């Protein structure tokens, strides 16, 4: 079809893609009532240019569609306003043009017919296409859902005296859009990811770099001059060297600047994503964006756009309720999805929040037990777990989102309140080029940990090991411990006592990573390990230290994940035995709580609901090493159970821990007389105390 200079073709595609992005923005702004007065003119001009260029370069289908758009927009221009109801047809026309210029030879007739039908210049075609009203809702929502408060555009003038819209929250003016999209082609639906290695840079940034380079040339001449005059002027020389340092920092800074772009450069597809999802699911939703001027590394921006679209679509499809449900809950029929970007520490937090139904209390509870909601919702396959996904309304592909941000050295957080909404936060590093690192040494080799993920560092003292899982007590809370060398599979001598440990927070968990020595923190330029090693997990890259040594930069979430693997491997290795413990209590919740605590510490746990059941288990399981029992139970109480255990020669030395709500001295005495090895009061119940007691008794055996 086109024997055309590939370079010209590339330019055509980029330009057309920019014009299409602008059309989408303006069409959506018109629907939202925030479009500038001359928007129809601008739309017409873009459609006209696309038609002309596409015809010339040899994409007749694209030219035909753009021509049909042009006709409709010309009519609209005469009336001074875009007729309502055209949004969907115009948006799908832009999609069709995008496909066409990427080489899809589809017939444009259907698109043209849809456009004309929407504009009322041709009888409506048979209802087809994905946007036909859902069968489930016969009282189908009018499409597009009319804005709540504003009457349909009967008035040719903008209905409200706010065309200058002084505060455009994330809705850049057409000029700004042109400038920003020129900087990075965000074409979400196109396939034009062809040349990720080339970037466009604003001339201002290049000019700044040129200034610094010019100054550096002068600096070099001044140095030369000073050196030729001999060393009589040492002070001047020092001064000159100092200014050289500043120039180098400036150079570094301006190159980094070239790698960064505002978030607004990728928000193009976002309003569309929210709108389309709302239309698909019969909901009403608006998108508000704040902080889109926040700067991020373009490499991060490139990949994160799709991820954010995913989260936005989730917010609409699973968060926001239908207008009826919202009305019943006393909310406005139109839901709000908010995207907010703001710096947090050395990271950028991008939060997508909705005012929808939130996740269920059941999921909340599971999240609380697992340590964080992220753990539950971003568990791979969570959403496909049938029943759960309906209840939760979240989690569709969140594991992929989480993996993506973690691979960039970031993280994910989720907060939710039933009935009030959900907020998903993506934490992203500002730049991949520079990173604040905590440098540590293990086995004589330096490693870097991203400083934002480091909570604190301290010297380890007493280590508790249970079931192959070492942990330490950090001001009352238990933190899992892992040897850095073991975590990544490196060589390393035995760790010295009181070695330093770094508490790292990642993937919603904390973990102490033990090393030989802390080397201090440093801002480092991050080097990639290269395409050959791109599939090697665990590293964010490498930094070159002042002495030329290479420090590998560790991915904190990898370390956290490795801990489970290492512990499991070690447990298998030491599988000489896992201690087996019996928990006896008539209350299901108490039994489950104790089972969880003990299993978490590496024990194998059996349960029984009363003394009779317990005796059956004890007879059946000769390997049993300890019994934890309640006193008050139906059938047979704990003290009677204890007497039976002590009365049998096979079990008379089996350790028994009583966990009871009876706190009196008399009760303790009776327990001890019956032969209990320990007595824990439920009211003072503390999982650490239980684990210590159980660990001590089993070790003594």
């Amino acid at each position, binding site marked *: 079809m086109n024997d055309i200079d590939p370079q010209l073709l590339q330019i055509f595609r980029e330009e057309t893609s920019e014009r299409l992005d602008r059309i989408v923005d303006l069409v959506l702004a018109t629907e939202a009532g925030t479009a500038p007065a001359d928007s129809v003119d601008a739309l017409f001009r873009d459609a006209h240019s696309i038609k002309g260029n596409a015809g010339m370069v040899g994409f007749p289908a694209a030219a035909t569609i753009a021509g049909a758009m042009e006709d409709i927009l010309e009519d609209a221009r005469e009336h001074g306003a875009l007729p309502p109801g055209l949004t969907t047809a115009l948006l799908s026309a832009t999609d069709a043009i995008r496909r066409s210029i990427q080489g899809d030879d589809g017939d444009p007739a259907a698109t043209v017919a849809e456009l004309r039908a929407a504009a009322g210049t041709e009888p409506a075609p048979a209802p087809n296409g994905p946007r036909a009203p859902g069968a489930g809702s016969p009282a189908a929502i009018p499409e597009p859902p009319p804005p709540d408060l504003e009457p349909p555009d009967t008035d040719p003038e903008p209905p409200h005296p706010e065309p200058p819209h002084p505060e455009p929250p994330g809705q850049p003016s057409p000029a700004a859009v042109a400038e920003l999209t020129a900087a990075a082609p965000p074409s979400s639906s196109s396939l034009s990811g062809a040349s990720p290695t080339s970037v466009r840079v604003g001339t201002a940034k290049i000019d700044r770099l040129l200034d610094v380079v010019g100054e550096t040339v002068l600096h070099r001449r001044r140095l030369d001059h000073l050196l030729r005059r001999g060393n009589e002027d040492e002070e001047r020389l020092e001064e000159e060297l100092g200014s050289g340092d500043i120039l180098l920092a400036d150079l570094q800074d301006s190159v980094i600047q070239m790698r960064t772009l505002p978030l607004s450069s990728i928000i193009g597809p976002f309003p569309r994503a929210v709108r389309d999802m709302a239309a698909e699911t019969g909901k009403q939703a608006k998108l508000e964006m704040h902080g889109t001027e926040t700067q991020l590394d373009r490499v991060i921006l490139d990949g994160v756009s799709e991820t954010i679209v995913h989260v936005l679509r989730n917010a609409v499809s699973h968060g926001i309720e239908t207008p009826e449900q919202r009305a019943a809950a006393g909310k406005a029929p139109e839901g709000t999805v908010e995207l907010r970007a703001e710096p947090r520490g050395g990271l950028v937090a991008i939060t997508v929040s909705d005012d929808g139904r939130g996740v269920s209390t059941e999921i909340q509870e599971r999240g609380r037990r697992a340590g964080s909601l992220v753990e539950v919702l971003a568990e791979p396959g969570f959403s496909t777990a049938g029943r759960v996904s309906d209840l939760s309304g979240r989690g569709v592909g969140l594991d992929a989102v989480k993996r993506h941000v973690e691979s960039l050295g970031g993280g994910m957080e989720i907060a939710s309140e039933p009935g009030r909404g959900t907020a998903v936060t993506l934490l992203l590093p500002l730049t991949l080029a520079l990173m604040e690192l905590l440098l540590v040494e293990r086995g004589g080799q330096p490693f870097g940990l991203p400083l934002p993920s480091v909570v604190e560092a301290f010297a380890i003292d007493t280590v508790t090991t249970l079931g192959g899982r070492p942990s330490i007590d950090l001001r009352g809370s238990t933190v899992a411990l892992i040897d850095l060398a073991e975590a990544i599979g490196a060589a390393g001598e035995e760790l010295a006592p009181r070695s330093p440990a770094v508490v790292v927070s990642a993937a919603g968990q904390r973990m102490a990573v033990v090393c030989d020595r802390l080397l201090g923190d440093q801002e480092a330029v991050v080097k990639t390990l290269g395409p050959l090693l791109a*599939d*090697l997990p665990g590293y964010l890259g490498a930094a070159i230290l002042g002495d030329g040594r290479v420090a590998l930069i560790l991915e904190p979430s990898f370390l956290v994940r490795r801990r489970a693997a290492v512990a499991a491997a070690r447990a298998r290795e030491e599988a000489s035995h896992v201690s087996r413990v019996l928990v006896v209590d008539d209350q299901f919740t108490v039994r489950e709580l104790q089972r969880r605590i003990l299993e978490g510490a590496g024990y194998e746990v059996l349960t029984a609901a009363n003394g009779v059941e317990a005796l059956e288990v004890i007879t059946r399981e000769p390997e049993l090493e300890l019994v934890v029992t309640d006193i008050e139970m139906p059938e047979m109480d704990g003290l009677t159970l204890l007497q039976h255990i002590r009365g049998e020669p096979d079990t008379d030395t089996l350790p028994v821990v009583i966990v009871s709500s009876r706190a009196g001295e008399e009760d303790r005495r009776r327990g001890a007389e019956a032969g209990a090895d320990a007595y824990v009061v439920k009211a003072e119940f503390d999982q650490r105390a239980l684990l210590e007691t159980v660990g001590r008794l089993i070790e003594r055996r």
Partner: protein
Amino acid sequence: MSSTHVRAVVAGETYGLPIEHVTEVAELGEVTPLPGAPSVIMGVRNLRGSVVPVASLAVLLGLSGDHSPQRLIVTEDDGRRLALAVEDVTDVTDIDAEPEPSESPLLHGAVLVDGVLIGLLDIRALMSAASPRGR
């Protein structure tokens, strides 16, 4: 058909690397171990500010002879870089003879030059053999 190769000695054997894939020859220098990488990867090396993976050519080829690499041949293919550790780099030579086919998937073939058998390395195949499989 003549082609230019960099000749290197590995575990007592001689191999040729097509010069269009060779970007530089360097001293072995300090190689930082890279835990978790395939065993052929000795680690990474700082080469004037960029980090390059280093592979042992002897291990890649499965050679059992004694070897203590001293030098690096930095190779490139389709944007991928890999430094191959060898004992010695002898010279750059034009090879005119048609190579005999070889059984090794890592070789284009082998030629006899002045009584010395030279294995002609397939750089692309070497790189694939050195790269880790996904998680």
